[in-house]
């Protein structure tokens, strides 16, 4: 139940992010964190895997991978929001070392998520054929 709600929220958020990106101006979406883009792409595909992959076992595996990506990114966004609050707190003077530490924490959260994400992306390729992968990629 909780996972279902999280997933629905993720899809809504993903679609909102995609819409916001395309609404913000013209040909290219605004720059964003790699985890934000990855989250939006995975969220829009979860419910559509069965339409692309006929084999039930592989479809379940691919859906599970997208759900895992989405959970990873949701956790990452929550952690980054916490780091963001710490960075934005108007505490002055802030020493250079403190600034470096705050930046490093934010970056470590992003980088850690991306390393896990790469492993999931590679697993996704092992679970799909090139044709299925291309059809999933075409979903926006």
């Amino acid at each position: 139940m909780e996972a279902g709600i999280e997933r629905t929220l993720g899809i809504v958020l993903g679609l909102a992010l995609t819409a916001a990106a395309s609404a913000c101006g013209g040909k290219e979406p605004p720059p964003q964190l790699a985890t934000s883009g990855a989250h939006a792409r995975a969220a829009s595909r979860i419910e559509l895997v069965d339409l692309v992959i006929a084999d039930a076992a592989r479809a379940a595996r691919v859906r599970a991978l997208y759900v895992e990506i989405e959970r990873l990114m949701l956790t990452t966004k929550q952690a980054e929001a916490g780091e963001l609050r710490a960075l934005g707190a108007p505490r002055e003077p802030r020493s250079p070392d403190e600034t470096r530490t705050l930046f490093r924490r934010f970056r470590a959260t992003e980088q850690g998520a991306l390393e896990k994400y790469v492993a999931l992306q590679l697993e996704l390729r092992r679970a799909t054929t090139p044709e299925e992968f291309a059809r999933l990629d075409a979903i926006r």
Partner: protein
Amino acid sequence: MFWIALSALIMSLTGAGDDTYVIRKFIERARDAVNTHVKDEARRRAANGTLERTAQAFEKHRQRVGKISACVERLDRTYAAARADYERCLVDVTPAWDAAAEDLIVLDRQLNEQLSPAERAAIRRDAEPD
């Protein structure tokens, strides 16, 4: 001084912010506040220069992070992409964030040196969102 703008920058990168409006507004208000509160012309010019370099540093970081994201997205769309390809995309994550931290440290220090404590307090009061 720049923490509000920094929060806004990161929010725009996470997709939670409204593009770069808050950052631009902050810099604009800070510039107006410098012109109002700093009577000494040389220090006023120097402080405005620092604000300009801050706006440039934010934009540079935004573009740099955007390049990493675009690189990852390109690989996500490529079936043949391998771990080494992703690693090449991510090689700038640490340098980009470390450079942004160093830029902000330097700019914040410069602005501190250019303003008196009273001017700084007044500018911060005027520049930060209501």
